[in-house]
Structure formats: C-alpha cells, structure tokens
C-alpha cells in the first residue's frame, strides 16, 4: 500500500476550509485566517513539490492512485499526475497562497479564505483526475467556490446580484456542455466503464460514430472556449477581473481548465474529430487574441478591466499552441500556462495593492504613484513585461515556441498573434504610465502624513516570489521543457496519427 500523496494534496486545503470558522472580531479574524490558511497551503506546496520531484516521469503512463483503493477498494475516483500537469500543481498552490497573503485585511475573512482553499483543492483535483468522472467533479469543484462566494456577496449586498448573474450564466456555459458530453460518452461508448484509464494517457481512443464524435467534441469545444474566456463566450473575464476577488480571479484564470480539457479529454479520446475541429479553435483563439488586445488598447478607464482584456488576449495564445498539435506548439502552450498564471497574478496583485491604498482603479484618477510606491511600480512593470513575453521571462520562450509552431502549421495565424502581443505590451505600458507616472493625483497628492504607503512586507515578498519564479523559468526553461518533452512528443504523435 503506497502513501496516498495525491489524495492528501487535494484534501488538505479543502479540509482546512471546512474547519475554518468565522470570528466576531474582524481584525483578529484576518490574522488568524491568514495564519491557518497559509500554514495549510505551505504543507500543500511541500506535498506538491514532493509529487513533482518524487515522480519518475518517463514516456509510460503514470501510477494511478485510487481514492479508497489503498483501503482495499478498487473503485472511486482515480488520481494520477503526468508530466503535462506536473508543473501546474505547485503553480496552483502558489496562486492560492498569493490569494491568502495578498488579500487586504478588510477582505481577508474566513469566507474568502474558504473559497480560495476550496478552489485550490478543486483545481488540484481537476489536474490530478485520472478518469472522466473525476475530471468532471474537479471541474465543478474548481468553479463552485467562486460562485458560492459571489452568492454570499449578493445576499449581503443587492448590488452584487448582477455580477452573480453574469458568473452564473458564463460558468453554466462552461459546465453544462461538459456534463452533457460526459454523459454522452458514458452512454455511447462501449468502453464507458473503462473511461478512466483512457482519459489521461493518450493511449486509447473511444470508438464512436464520426457524427457522435463531432457532437461530443462540439460540446467539449464550447466548454473549453467558455472556460478559457474566448470570443464569443468571453465577457465574464474582464468583468471578473474588474469586479471580482483578485484571489479567485487569478485562480480561475490560472487553472487552465479549458486547456486541460482539450489535452486530457478531447484529443486523447477523440483524436480524429479533434483534428478537424482544431481550425475552429485556432480561429476563436486568434479572434480572442485580437479582440482582447483591441479592447485593452481602447482607452480603458479601469486598470483591472484593462488587465482582464490583456489576460484574455494573452491566454488565447495558449489555445493557438494547443491547436497546432505539434511538439513546439504544445510545449509552448504548456509553458505559457505556467508563465501566464504567474505573470497575470503578479499584475493583478500589484493592481490590488494600488487599489487598497488609493480606493480606485480609475486610470483618470490614478497617477504619480511612483514617488510613493517605487517598489510597487517597478514590480508591476516587471510582471507586466513578463506577461507579454519580455526576454528573461517564461513568456518569451513560450511566445517564441508558439510563433514557430503557428508559422509551421497555419502561417496566417502568426501575424495577428504577434500583433496582439505587441498591442498588449503597449496597453500595459500605457496602464503603467497612467497609474504610476505623471503628476500625483487623488490621494497620492494629498499633503500631510504620507497618504499612500509603499508595499508592506507580505505584499513585497508575494510579488517578488512571483517574479522570481517567472525569471527562473525564463532563464532556465529547459527544466520545464525537458520534464515534459516525452509527454509532449507522445501527445503530439497521438494527435497527428490518423
């Protein structure tokens, strides 16, 4: 009987969330919540690192861990990690830790921490799922905490009902087609009972009629596009970035569930239909990249909304890479998943720290903060540069691979993708200029004791840790690329073999 590492990894944040209680004294609650949650997540991170460095990832299938199986039952959810998701596990935990440490004292309630921890567990379950049922459960488990958090907000404040409705509509669009596809697969597939062993390892596809395959893939495609926030199912991304909790936004967008759906369910199970639908995915991704870049450039007033558009545009590059289905594209897409999650978290948290101090995200009312917050301005700039692929960050290597792959398979894709990246860089620079440079405005201008203060310790270390990870990954990308090389080759071969 082996030690149930994955089960523990997934359960630890969720169990912590269950036992986290509200407190009457808000100030005490903030510190207590932060301490307990951060402690649990530190343990989770150590476990994730143990999984990463302890796993022997060759070209063969990974060892499957049966939840309950270690107690003698060969049933229940099956968990496993392969090289594709391996780097995403610590990133998921890091995003949750950032969510706990970065949230301002006012927002750092037990309810918020529970949502962050539960989202972390749900995302880990999604990433470690070894069968379709577990994948679907993980899918919902990674979404529902955000929905419940928004619902609780709406019960407290009627003005939050609108955002809840938007979240419900779009997350419903990102979930119901998946449920239908899973049910269809179970009903129509002869090997439905054995789906679990098929989903993960790209070894066996499901035998279905071509028409059925296409319908199921259409459902999966809609799910992936909605969850990735691609046109026309995109509106929730900038909205969430503007009005949602930063912690949950970075977790939801950093989970890359849509990409995992394509890589671990759609391509392995339905390779023939996948090949035919990839042109559509590419089209949607290119339109999303261009549209997001245009919207970010178009004189946005809210800094966080601008970041949301940039995030939508940049994350669509991942789908471009996946849709190429060649080695460079897949490697670039997987690298971009890591780079995007870290860089987007960096800019969002930097923006949050500005918002906490100034009370606004209105770019017309911000400005001149560099004198008060020089470190924050520098870290925001670096994170923004990493988001659009400055040399030295993970994004640069990923972009390089993605453009190479795109030009090899669909040359017409390369130009809009590059243009979108360029426009995003310009938008972020303009946002940086409007927020930090120029004459001080608003609270930054007020006389007397410094009205706006520099980052405090935990905020500083949070941003620096995110940046350090981006730089280390960018300077030594071969660690991340090499670890996934065999898996990427196998996936590429599975996708390209008729």
């Amino acid at each position, binding site marked *: 009987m082996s030690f149930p590492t994955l089960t523990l990894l997934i359960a630890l944040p969720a169990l912590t969330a269950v036992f986290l209680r509200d407190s009457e004294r808000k100030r005490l609650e903030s510190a207590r919540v932060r301490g307990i949650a951060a402690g649990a997540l530190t343990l989770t991170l150590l476990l994730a690192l143990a999984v990463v460095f302890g796993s022997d990832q060759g070209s063969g299938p990974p060892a499957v861990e049966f939840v309950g199986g270690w107690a003698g039952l060969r049933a229940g959810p099956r968990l496993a990690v392969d090289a594709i998701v391996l780097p995403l596990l610590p990133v998921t935990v890091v995003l949750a830790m950032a969510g706990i440490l970065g949230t301002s004292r006012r927002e750092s309630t037990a309810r918020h921490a529970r949502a962050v921890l539960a989202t972390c567990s749900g995302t880990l379950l999604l990433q470690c799922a070894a069968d379709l049922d577990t994948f679907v459960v993980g899918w919902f488990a990674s979404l529902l905490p955000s929905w419940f958090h928004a619902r609780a907000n709406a019960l407290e404040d009627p003005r939050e009902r609108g955002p809840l409705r938007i979240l419900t509509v779009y997350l419903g669009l990102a979930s119901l087609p998946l449920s239908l596809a899973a049910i269809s697969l179970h009903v129509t597939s002869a090997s439905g009972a054995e789906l679990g062993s098929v989903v993960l390892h790209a070894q066996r596809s499901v035998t279905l009629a071509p028409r059925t395959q296409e319908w199921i893939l259409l459902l999966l495609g809609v799910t992936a596009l909605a969850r990735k926030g691609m046109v026309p199912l995109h509106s929730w991304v900038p909205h969430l970035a503007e009005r949602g909790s930063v912690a949950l936004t970075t977790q939801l967008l950093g989970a890359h569930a849509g990409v995992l759906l394509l890589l671990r369910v759609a391509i392995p199970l339905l390779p023939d239909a996948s090949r035919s639908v990839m042109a559509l995915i590419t089209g949607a991704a290119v339109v999303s990249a261009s*549209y997001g870049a245009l919207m970010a450039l*178009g004189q946005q*007033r809210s800094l966080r909304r601008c970041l949301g558009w940039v995030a939508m545009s940049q994350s669509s590059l991942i789908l471009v890479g996946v849709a190429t289905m060649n080695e*460079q594209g897949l490697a670039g897409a997987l690298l971009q998943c890591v780079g995007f999650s870290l860089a987007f978290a960096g800019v969002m948290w930097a923006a949050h720290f500005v918002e906490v*101090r100034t009370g606004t995200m209105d770019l017309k009312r911000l400005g001149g903060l560099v004198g008060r917050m020089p*470190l924050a301005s520098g870290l925001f700039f670096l994170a923004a540069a990493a988001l659009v692929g400055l040399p030295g960050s993970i994004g640069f290597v990923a972009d390089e691979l993605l*453009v190479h792959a795109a030009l090899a398979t669909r040359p017409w894709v390369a130009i809009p993708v590059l243009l979108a990246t360029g426009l995003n860089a310009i938008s972020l620079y303009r946002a940086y200029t409007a927020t930090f440079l120029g004459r001080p405005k608003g609270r930054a201008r007020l006389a007397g004791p410094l009205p706006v203060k520099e980052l405090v310790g935990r905020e500083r270390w949070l941003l620096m840790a995110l940046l350090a990870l981006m730089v280390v990954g960018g300077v030594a990308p071969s660690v991340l690329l090499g670890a996934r090389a065999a898996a990427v080759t196998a996936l590429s071969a599975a996708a390209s073999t008729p």
Partner: protein
Amino acid sequence: MSQLEVLRLASCGAIGAPLLATAILGLLLFTGQRRSERLVSGIAQGALLASFAASLVCVLIALGPEWTPRRMPLVEWFRVGDMAYELALLSDRLTLVMMPLVSGLTLLATHFSRDYLHRDPGFLRFHFLVGLFATGMLWVVASASLEQLFVGWELVGVSSALLVGYFQERRAPSQAGARVFTTYRLCDLGILLAVPALHHAVGSAEFVLSGEGASVHRLSAVGGVTGLAIALALLLGAIGKSAQLPAGGWLPRAMEGPTPSSALFYGGVSVHAGVFLLLRAGTLLEASPLARLLVGLCGLTTAVYAGLAARVQSDAKGTLAFATMAQVGVMFVEIAVGLETLALVHLVSHAVLRIYQLFRAPSALSDARAIEAALANVGPQSAPLASPARHRGAPRYLYRIALDRTFLDTVQNNWLLQPVFSAARWFEAWERRWLGRIEGAAAPLVFRGDQEGEGSALARPASGREALQPLGADSVRAEVLRTEVLRAEPLSTEALSAESLPVESLRVPGSHR
C-alpha cells in the same frame, strides 16, 4: 589557453560585466537600499571600463595574422524536438567595430552623468537602466543569430522607453516614453515574424559567412516572395529603432529624457541599431532588389523630411534629433546602394560626433546665454533659429511643412489611432450593454465620458431597483457619481489605519450622499 578561448572569454566579459553591474544595481534598486552616488557610479563605470577593455582585447586578437571571423558557441538554451536554441557569440568585423564603440560611448555617458545627475533622486535608476541598455546593445552586436539578437533588441527598447520617461513626475516625458515604447514594440513585430519565417525558409536564423574571404556574418539569402517578405519585416524592425519614416516621429519626443541618455541612445548607439541590423541582413537584401529599393526610399525620404524639420527647430536637442534622423537616413541609402563599408564608417563617425554634440548641448546653451548677457544687446543680433527670417529665399510652404513635420503626426493620429480607439469604444459600449442585459438592469447605460467630457467609461446605476426608476439627466449624473464614490471608498482597514484620513475627504464634490 588558446586564442579562441581568450576571445570567447573576452567577448563574454564584455557583455557579462555590464550585466553583473545591472544585476547589482537592480538589487539595490528593488531592495530600496540607499547607496552613495559614488558607489553607484563606481559600479557602473567599473563594469563599463571592464567591458571596454574586454572589447579592446577582442580587437587586439583580431589584429593578429591568424584571426578569422568565427562563431563561438556558448550553451544550448533550450531544445524542443528538432528546434534548438543555442547561444553563441560572433567575432567578425562588424562585431569588432561595434563592441568597443558601444562600451566606450556608454562609459563616456555614465562618466558624464556622474556630475550631470548629481543629487538627482533617480541617480541609481538611471545607472541601472544604462547598464541594462549596455548589456542589451552589446548582446545585439555580438549575437550569432537573429533570435538571439532580438533578446538584446528588446532590452534596448525597454531601457530606452524608461529613460525617455526618466522624469517620472512630469507628464510629457512619460507620454514620450509611451510613444517610444509603442513605436518600438510595433516595429519589433517585424523581427519576431522574420525569425520563424527564416527558420522555415532556410532552417535557421543564424548569421553565417556568405562566402570565401567574407569578414561579416550575415543572414542567409532567401529568394522570391519569401525573401522579400522577410527583408521587409526586418526593414520594419530597422525603421522603428532608427527613427526612419514613417515611424520616426518618436525621436524628437525622446529628447525629453536626461541629456546623457539622449546622447547615448539617440545620438550615439541605439538609433544606429537599425543600420546594424540591415548590415547583418546584407545578403538577404542583395537577393531582393525591391527590398533594397524600399530601404533606399525610406532613407531618402527620411533624410529630406528630417533635413527640413531640423531647420525650423527652436531647441538644440530637437535640431540634433532631426539631424541624426537625416544622417541615419543617408546610411540607409548607402546600404541600399551596396556601400556597406561606407555605411559602417559613417555609423561610427556619426555616433562619435553626435554624442559629443549632445553632451555639449546644455553647455552650449549656457555659453550662448553668457555671451548674450555679456554683450548686453551690443553685439550682432541674429534671428532666432526657428524664425522665418533665417530662411528667406525658401518657399513659404516649405517652412510651413517643416514646422508641421509634414503633417505626419496628424495623419497617423487621425487615420490610424483614432479609428482604432473609436472601434474599441464602440465594442466596449456594446460589451457593457450586453452585460447589463444579463445583469437585468433595464435602465440605459450612461456614457460618463459623454457627460463629463473625459473619456469613455460607462457607469451603471447601482442596483436593478434603482435602475428601474425614471431618471432624468441630473439624477443619472448623481447616480453615476454615487456609484463612483461607493466603488472608490471601501478602503482596507490597514490603509485607513495607516493614513488616518477622514473618509469624508474622499467624497466626490457634488455627491448627494
């Protein structure tokens, strides 16, 4: 130790020294450590002196009889499938000319700035960015492939934009920095596109020796439409960095930065990066006559345009900026007609002269004022530089065209930027309306910008119930303001406790709550 190993070590040292200095200065900058100007300047100058010395060692080795142009592999950065990204440095005539020029001029600029920026609050930041620039530019000139060159190219662009916006508390420099960054980034797409295109056309984006006795590594020749497309993509990158038409409008604005960086970037080194790129792409251009024609046309029109505009500038730095554009335009023409050696000589001599002129510019103004004061209106009076009186004999319309810089900015703004912004505004309004429908708010959305004349943000009534009330214009405005206030006010307790600022003071004037 063999000659090759010494050469490799010296080349690495020339790039590594400023990189190390940048890392140290960056660490000081981001940890908020306050250090003396002497230490900061010492680190920067010491590193650049070491870089200059290492560059000279490379040159000395090259002067030996056994030297041949060579490529020195360093390390494989990463590999995916059959695509390997290897880092390597070059030792050829172009690199050996440019390396001492870059490190030497940067050393001079840091030496100059020690006194020029004395007691300036951004002293450390300036030296950090100059170190970053030196690292990037040296990497550009020593790179063995186009994709490797692009890494340094980007570092030069970022450091350049940040130094233009060096005086962060003023609006104009930060806007000029944004303009510089925008132009760079859009034009750099050309190089980003050329790299994979070269890979697919000839299997590599490496610079190679084009034949027996060749002394410069260049891109491989690609014929046909692909070759033309790659050459034009590279031309796009070159005109961005070298401020050639139609992307040259940023250069006069870039003079908002401190004089040492203006001299280094836009007089001495950075502005010549495009010329350097075209020299590296020589073989590719030779294979495409149309591309060469466009390079020549680009340079020629820029030389005429900048020559005209320089005549009517009212400040020394502006005049020098346009003069630089004109000279670089001439270099483009030289490359187009195949006079590459002349272009290289022109580049070096122009860089040295122009950086000297820009260093002298502040003193020259001061001297002129002193002379005027001493003569007390007794001496010969000359018309102001930009006065029409100086240009008698020239057609008046030329003066007008020169003064308006051939209306280039107006055309770009009205025909390129405004349509993009208008489209984005329209889509944004549509997005908000769509989300409003989902939210269930029946009231019309309000264009805040339309009412207040300051932008395009949309505001929504606070809740569905309130939205159903019939709202007049004033009440809508009040509602919008209220929403703004409600969104703006919730501050964290730590922010409030740290600041002890009354929340009332944050209310927007005119708010009815």
